[in-house]
């Protein structure tokens, strides 16, 4: 909850500062398929596997904070996901960090990088997996595909977004959806969910949170 408040303050502050900067000529960034974004979401994850006599499932509280920032097209995308088991005596809590670098153009964007997951007490304590995501804008529709997206949680997906709504097929069998409900020009409520099956394993996650779009700064501007 603290991170949600921080996000609101940050989005509002940046917006206000951008509006106050009346003395300089307003900076209009070149159009790109992505704009700066930060978000913080809370949610619920249920994961486990099925067998002939039923299933083994664990439930977790999830907290995801992340975003991407563009430096003249050069893109940094980062996210931190914590999963806290809701029942004692079962799985361990974990924290995952995803840092992806790439480039965003007028119609496309590609970012790639590692997902580092730490879980205590686990053996091994830390694991590292690759992650990649690509976007391509086709008119009003943005197509996207990714591997281990959402801080490593979605194994592979291909999807499309139109306006504030996005849908995706999650491989090998699943779906992903997100919707943004605007609160202001630069802030909104984000509802995001996915569910999939991978062999006998299955996972479903639903998160709700705030998303904000801080204005772009002029390239090279220290502020």
């Amino acid at each position: 909850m603290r991170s949600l408040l921080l996000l609101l303050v940050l989005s509002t502050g940046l917006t206000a500062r951008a509006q106050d900067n009346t003395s300089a000529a307003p900076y209009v960034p070149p159009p790109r398929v992505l704009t700066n974004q930060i978000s913080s979401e809370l949610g619920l994850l249920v994961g486990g596997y099925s067998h002939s006599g039923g299933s083994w499932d664990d439930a977790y509280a999830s907290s995801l904070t992340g975003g991407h920032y563009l430096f003249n097209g050069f893109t940094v995308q980062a996210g931190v996901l914590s999963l806290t088991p809701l029942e004692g005596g079962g799985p361990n809590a974990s924290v995952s960090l995803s840092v992806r670098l790439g480039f965003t153009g007028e119609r496309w964007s590609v970012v790639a990088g590692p997902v580092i997951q730490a879980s205590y007490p686990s053996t091994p304590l830390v694991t590292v997996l690759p992650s990649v995501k690509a976007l391509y804008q086709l008119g009003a529709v943005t197509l996207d595909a990714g591997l281990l997206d959402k801080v490593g949680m979605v194994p592979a997906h291909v999807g499309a977004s139109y306006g504030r709504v996005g849908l995706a097929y999650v491989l090998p069998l699943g779906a992903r959806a997100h919707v943004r409900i605007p609160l202001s020009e630069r802030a909104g409520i984000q509802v995001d969910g996915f569910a999939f099956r991978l062999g006998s394993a299955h996972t479903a996650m639903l998160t709700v949170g705030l998303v904000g779009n801080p204005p772009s700064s002029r390239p090279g501007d220290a502020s």
Partner: protein
Amino acid sequence: MSRHLWMALSLLLAACSDRPSFDPDVVKATPLGKGLPAGFMLGTSTAAHQVEGGNENDWAVWERGQWPDGRPHIKDGTVSGAATDSWNRFDEDMRLMEKLGANAYRFSVEWSRLQPTPDSWNTEAMARYQSWARALRQRGITPLVTLYHFTLPTWIMEAGGWESPATQEAFEAYVARVAEALGGEVDWWCTINEPNVYAVLGYLDGEWPPGKKDTKAMALVLSQLMEAHARAARQLRSKDTVDVDGDGQATRIGLAHHVRVFQPASGSTVDTAVAGLTDTFFNESVPEAIRTGRIRLSVPGQVSIDREVADLKGSIDYLGINYYTRDYVRQYLGEPALSRQYVPRGREKNDLGWELFPEGLYLFLTRYAELGLPLIVTENGMADHTGERRPYFLQSHLYAVEQARAQGADVRGYFHWSLLDNFEWAEGYEPKFGLFSVDLSSPEKTRTETPAVSTFQEIARNLGLTPSP
């Protein structure tokens, strides 16, 4: 606000969860045994190589060997050797069973002892096994005989072991002779003990003979063992036609399936996926093969076996379950199994570091109840050198059996591993699993009761059995 929300969510999920959590006070206060039906088999388990002594087979050869760095194959440097000398002390062991009040005993016959070379057959040894089964029955103890419990004659291993198709013929012929000889004294048979454990430890982890680390060979051996089971069942049905206990069925055939709870280490997708993959391979493939008659084994990117086996479908009258522990599974791409298994710090463990998780036995019994077959716990026990923690272990796992029965699982028996301390394979003699400890250094291999004996006796009395003084 958010804290209250999560607490409410946690409570809601806990209320909806079907995963049990046993309260030790409730377990201890339950008069265990009273919830079990008359005729329920309450006994102990052993295996020939671990207790008989004097066996010369592939394991004996392995025990004398070393790893490339000079460490002995057996962790504590021991060899099975004379073991607990049960080959010569069976009468004494039977008295221990009577003292427990047990009404059943699971033991194995040793292939290498009965058929030391391809062209020989040890009729004297066969007669001794026959006399054991008869003596047990005379004392009201039902014998349950295992035909293959991890050890192979050296001539079989030298010819390729379970990787060789010729082993199928040899095993089938061996089973036919045992069935003919023991059929008049035995109704309850266990064809193969823990095919999944044998395949994984011998051919994937390389910790047991023949010490291979080969995923394809591991899958091949597991499929061969399932075929061997089907062939053995065919021979038992054909050669054992004597209904010893007069229940209308001459043979009660099963196999002992080793199961482990695989707990995803964390909520990450990859940990969950590898836990599911491991469960499917280790816990599900054997009963699924028996249910469908097809062996389906798959390790992504490495091996895929899918074949029908004659007489496999419907080959068992009961499913034996060997249950000990829960493993946490964490993805690790550096391992052939794509994961690492461990027990987190802070969990209650036995002397071998295996987590004590009696709820897991309940979960497996209710899970396999869906097969529609009677279930028997063919092994369950703990390594406990003091013997002080075993009484509660026994209570909590019998409690799991009773809880599973109350949920409708048709559990017909419970065999504690083990009657005696014995040779625990690659771990040597260090782990102490026995209800009776054994002084291995004494010439008499002195047996001494541990605190769990009185716990077992109490359960036996509640079941209507009579432990001897």
